[in-house]
């Protein structure tokens, strides 16, 4: 299990100014690269799992250079299967943790996804081409 953090946000209404205040936060998660990540992939996203394994998916995305903001929802699906943490209840609440509307915050999230996917792919002693 590898510990890491994810950039999240929290929006609240400032009663004095009557304006929305967005505060950047971080949540601590652990990356699970075991067979159980694949199990979560098959259980939560059977349509995607029918075509390829979770690991094959992120490897393909990396090789095709598609880890970008355009495909962020697909990447969140993959990321959700790899992560364990107290703040992650289900996929819906997981998606709500991130701000995909704000360009800056989205770029930060995509960068983090890239790093996490690299860690996941590099932490095996063998590669899938073996």
């Amino acid at each position: 299990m590898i510990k890491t953090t994810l950039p999240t946000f929290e929006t609240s209404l400032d009663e004095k100014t009557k304006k929305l205040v967005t505060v950047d936060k971080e949540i601590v998660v652990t990356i699970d690269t075991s067979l159980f990540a694949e199990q979560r992939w098959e259980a939560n996203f059977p349509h995607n799992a029918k075509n390829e394994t979770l690991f094959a998916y992120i490897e393909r995305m990396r090789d095709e250079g598609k880890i970008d903001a355009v495909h962020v929802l697909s990447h969140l699906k993959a990321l959700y299967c790899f992560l364990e943490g107290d703040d992650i209840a289900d996929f819906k609440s997981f998606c709500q943790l991130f701000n995909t509307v704000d360009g800056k915050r989205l770029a930060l999230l995509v960068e983090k996804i890239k790093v996490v996917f690299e860690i996941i792919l590099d932490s095996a002693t063998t590669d899938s081409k073996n």
Partner: protein
Amino acid sequence: MAHSQALLRLYDKLNPNGRNNRKNDLIVPRFITLMAKCVEHKIPDVFIARTHFTDLYVLLLSLDITNIKMQLKQKSKRAQADRNVNVRDISQADAVKFLKGGGNG
């Protein structure tokens, strides 16, 4: 994947008639298939939980390849043993005698 291709080739060697039925083998979810393999090879659950998916997958394929190679060896040994019932090693003199119609006694 080289391991899985090698495994399929070995399966075909072991059971040539099963080649057409392979499509049906893929219906079971991957997770169930892999867990079944882990149980079959008596892999401890701590190892399953802590090992990277790719490493575990390659390990299972390697174990399967080793098992099937052993089964193929045994199969070929049995076939050789069966053939030996009918085939006899004879000397050159016996062979000449047989060809001349003198029997093999």
